[in-house]
């Protein structure tokens, strides 16, 4: 029997889970192999040390405390201390936040598109020079040479718009007075078309 085989049976030898024949073989090996004998001695002394540890006794009043605690827990089993690790609520909160964001995202996107569309409607393509102080009132018909730029509404002349709001008919009256009278037009009546 070689040393490896003997050493693999240390546990069974200690637990007395080997056959009588195996025990005799091992005893014979120990008698002739000092290394295995010493190794087994260390193995056995380790387990003796473990087995010699004093038994811990329950503290005084253990039974009474347990009975009281058990009855409290039985009345409210949901209040039993949870083995739930501390990171679970944090992870659950983060997961909820992600889900909430994912749920809201489809609603946010159209809104963003709408906002972008609104901005596009209020932008006018103008030459960059039109925004410079040297030309405070640029031509509205100037060709766009660069990308769309949002410009202030102040640069437009709204005089006529204001007049129209106050008296929608007045501008047309003025134009009608300036223009040569059309033969087909009679009196003060005018037709306003938009």
């Amino acid at each position, binding site marked *: 029997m070689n040393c490896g085989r003997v050493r693999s049976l*240390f*546990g069974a030898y200690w637990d007395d889970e080997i056959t009588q024949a195996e025990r005799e073989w091992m005893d014979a090996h120990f008698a002739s192999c000092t290394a295995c004998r*010493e190794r087994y001695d*260390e*193995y056995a*002394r*380790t*387990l003796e*040390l*473990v*087995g010699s*540890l*004093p*038994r*811990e*006794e*329950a*503290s005084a009043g*253990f*039974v*009474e*405390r*347990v*009975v009281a*605690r*058990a*009855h409290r*827990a*039985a009345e409210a*089993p949901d209040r*039993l*201390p949870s*083995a739930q*690790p*501390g*990171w679970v609520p944090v992870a659950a909160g983060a997961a909820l936040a992600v889900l909430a964001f994912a749920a809201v995202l489809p609603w946010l996107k159209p809104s963003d598109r709408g906002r972008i569309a609104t901005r596009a409607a209020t932008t006018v393509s103008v030459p960059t020079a039109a925004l410079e102080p040297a030309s405070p009132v640029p031509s509205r018909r100037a060709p766009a040479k660069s990308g769309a730029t949002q410009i202030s509404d102040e640069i437009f002349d709204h005089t006529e718009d204001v007049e129209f709001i106050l008296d929608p008919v007045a501008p047309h009256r003025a134009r009608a007075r300036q223009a040569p009278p059309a033969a087909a037009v009679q009196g003060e009546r005018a037709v306003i078309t938009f």
Partner: protein
Amino acid sequence: MAPDREPGLPSVVSLSDEDLMARVAEDDERAFPELVRRFQGRVTNLVSRILNDRECADDLAQEVFVRVFVHRRNYRRGSKFSTWLFTIAANLAKNEIRRRVRKRNWFSLDALQELVNDSAIQLADPTEGRESRMEREQLRDTVGRAIAAVPEKYRLSLVLRDIEGLSYEEIAQVLGIPGGTVRSRINRARGMLKRKLQPLLRREGTS
């Protein structure tokens, strides 16, 4: 607490563990305290050796019995009570170990090495007259720490076998693993423990 013997009722003290647990499940108020009284030492010792923490062990041992009481109707009649009890104890101890590992509040192997190196403690060897040089408490503390430094899955098997004296078959039931796995885990655990305690096992002429 209700007295053990009431007129017309048999004593619960003479009942087997399994019959006693059956009484607990039937809400016999005398049964549960008796059950706790019988097993309080074993459960406290078991969790104390697994955790190597006496104070925490007391609280955890209480929790084991609380679980037994709360889940008393889940106990299957006919099955061995101590196996069920140790299963609960092992699971709670396992949870506690994992909680501690998460909190990084666990025993440091370096601390053990330091203790072993710095101290002059050696295994008692009456033939060589070393026992007088050894502080018994310190030795026990070191052995307890060495056990606690064995990885959890091996440690549970080791404590159930070499401290609680359970059979391999019972350990397999408690841990829910095959008997062969129990054997290999115990062998590995013993090997690890032997290596950890090697400095204490030195004999004259080999150190």
